[in-house]
């Protein structure tokens, strides 16, 4: 009995002393922090993707609080909804920004771009890229080792086992651009996200002359500039035998898709041809190409 009481007392005393020491230290080394940092941070997705250009979500929250205006501050993953809430906490004006999404600018599936050799190095695009042109005839196209997949903290990219190309899930993608930075060939671009995820883009990065590019891949952009001539909005530019569609200028009329002789321009997430949608922005006369759902 005596022993039990004694142990209880001893433990209690040790506990009390420890608590006192801890309290004293906590007081002595206390770091004063703006409580709003925690509030803002709790609103953020917490993926620490770095898409905002800051070193993680907490760092972004800190800079939001330091900033005098939210101009140019955007959490690409949380989007406008989150920014509005942050603006509410900070009592500032929210600045609307268009949602963005990652786009894979290569359509060199196994059918379009035959594999010419076997890569057996470490499974990393960066390593394969420094070693050689890749297991196809195209030195610009996707290597398919999935560096973009492993950096995506939102699980929005997967490699399609059939085409061996990355596929972006537009619902999960926050447009942070981690994949675009990881891609050694700059194939992935973060573009303006159209209504319902629609987008028109050139799915090719091959800068070789038309013949060489076409030899490597069936759907290569040959730089023929038909699309640029067709475009009424000056959205398309051709440089280095390669066409590029500016997503900020593109009105998604899809005329370029029709004139492309190699099918290098993709129009994604448009409704199928037969269903007429009243909300469609393109002129009623434009037929929807068959590639639209690729």
């Amino acid at each position, binding site marked *: 009995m005596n022993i039990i009481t004694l142990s209880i007392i001893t433990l209690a005393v040790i506990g009390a002393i420890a608590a006192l020491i801890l309290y004293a230290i906590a007081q002595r080394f206390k770091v004063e922090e703006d409580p709003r940092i925690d509030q803002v941070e709790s609103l953020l997705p917490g993926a620490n993707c770095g898409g905002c250009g800051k070193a993680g979500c907490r760092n972004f929250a800190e800079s939001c609080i330091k900033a005098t205006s939210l101009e140019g501050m955007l959490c690409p993953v949380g989007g406008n909804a989150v920014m509005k809430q942050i603006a509410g906490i900070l009592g500032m004006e929210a600045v609307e920004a268009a949602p963005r999404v990652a786009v894979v600018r290569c359509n060199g599936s196994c059918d379009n771009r035959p594999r010419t050799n076997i890569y*057996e190095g470490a499974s990393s695009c960066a390593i394969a890229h420094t070693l050689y042109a890749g297991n196809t005839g195209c030195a610009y196209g996707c290597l398919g080792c999935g560096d973009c997949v492993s950096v995506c903290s939102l699980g929005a990219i997967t490699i399609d086992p059939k085409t061996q190309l990355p596929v972006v899930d537009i619902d999960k993608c926050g447009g942070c651009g981690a994949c675009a930075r990881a891609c050694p060939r700059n194939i992935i671009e973060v573009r303006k996200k159209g209504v319902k995820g629609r987008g028109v883009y050139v799915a090719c990065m091959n800068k*070789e002359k038309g013949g060489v590019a076409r030899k490597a891949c069936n759907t290569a952009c040959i730089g023929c500039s038909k699309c640029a001539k067709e475009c009424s909005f000056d959205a398309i530019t051709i440089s280095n035998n390669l066409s590029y569609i500016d997503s900020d200028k593109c009105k998604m009329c899809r005329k370029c898709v029709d004139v492309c002789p190699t099918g290098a321009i993709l129009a994604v997430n448009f409704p199928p041809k037969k269903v007429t949608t009243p909300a469609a922005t393109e002129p009623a006369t434009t037929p929807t190409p068959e590639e639209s759902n690729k």
Partner: protein
Amino acid sequence: MKTFKIGGVHPHENKLTAGYHITTAPLPQQAIILLSQHIGAPAQCVVEKGAHVKVGTLLAQANGFVSANIHSPVSGVVSKIDSVVDGSGYAKPAIYINVEGDEWEDSIDRSNTLVKECNLDAKAIIDKIAQMGIVGIGGATFPTQVKLMPPPNMKPEVLIINAVECEPYLTNDHALMLEKADEIMVGVEILMKAIHVTKAYIGIEINKPDAIDLLKEKSLEHQGIEIVPLQCKYPQGGEKQLIDAIINRQVASGALPVSTGAVVQNVATAYAVYEAVQKNKPLIERVVTVTGKSLQNPGNFLSRIGASLSLLIEAAGGLPEDTGKIVLGGPMMGRATANIEAPTGKGTSGILILTDDEAHRPDASPCIRCAKCVAACPMGLEPYLLSKVVAMGNYDVAESHHIYDCIECGCCSFSCPANRPLLDYIRHGKGKVMAIMRARNANDKK
């Protein structure tokens, strides 16, 4: 028996073509000359389309201090100046020449007579070497004249000639030593003169006893040249390892090898120097070992630079049906290629044809920390750790574990029982870390 102190492995030698005579490869119909066949800035093209060139005509001029001249290896007409898909599959700028006959520049002495006397002074020798576009043809292709001009605060004490040829399969240096021993000796003397040293060591592994005996005999006629037989161990032909093996000094991390007082040149480079200085012959041809177990007629071929791989493979009996991998260089450090139409360059020391059975890498399994890579690493690094942190993207940890010291010899991947691609990751991480360090240094200077 001398050898280097840390690490090393013993791969199967497979010197199938040891003792084979050097045979002259057929002239190509079209030669494609890359503008970047050396370490440093690509050379600047000085000929135009349609120009008639002879063997030895200057095609491209060195562009900067670390760069090298390129001369025409064939005679004919420049058909185009365009890009060519090289061994890596990437397009690189190149000069195409349609071959017509075999007419040489008059200044080149094509006779076989040995010219022993060299009356040029050091400066003139180095200029001549630079003019003739000599690069280190052991594989690294570093411009030779740069190595002969060390920074003023470092004084060369000895010349070390690298005749180790520790890469399995390759025998081109071996063949050259057996057939051109006298010329090599004169070349070594010229190099000694160029860097003002009186002592030269020629390091040869003991798997080439005939070359050791022959050169020992020849060295009696030349003062200050000593033949050093070395124990067989890979990577003895690495510059740092060779200096360690022969004069027992270790190059400090990040320092130039010449800081130890030694200048290292390859034995084939010494021969090229002889030809350049004594015979006015630019670097337009070299010995290439074409080898492989299934190859019909492997051999050591004297081939013009710019000939395609397929031409040399044809000369060796054609590409076997069961080919699985084509390697430019030796199996430890060579580069695999899928493009047999790629042109050869100054650094193409060998073409190795591996069969399909030999070509594949076994599947990797988890690291069991057996530390065989640590024991094998000739630089005293921890490959298992480096590859792990690189794969995770922890470049700062990789830097603090001296990833930049890696010489990419491949001993780690070679010895890994779990078949992990250690060097793949380390090489990648080394590139990343060096870029980070350069950026930081540039920032500090600002």
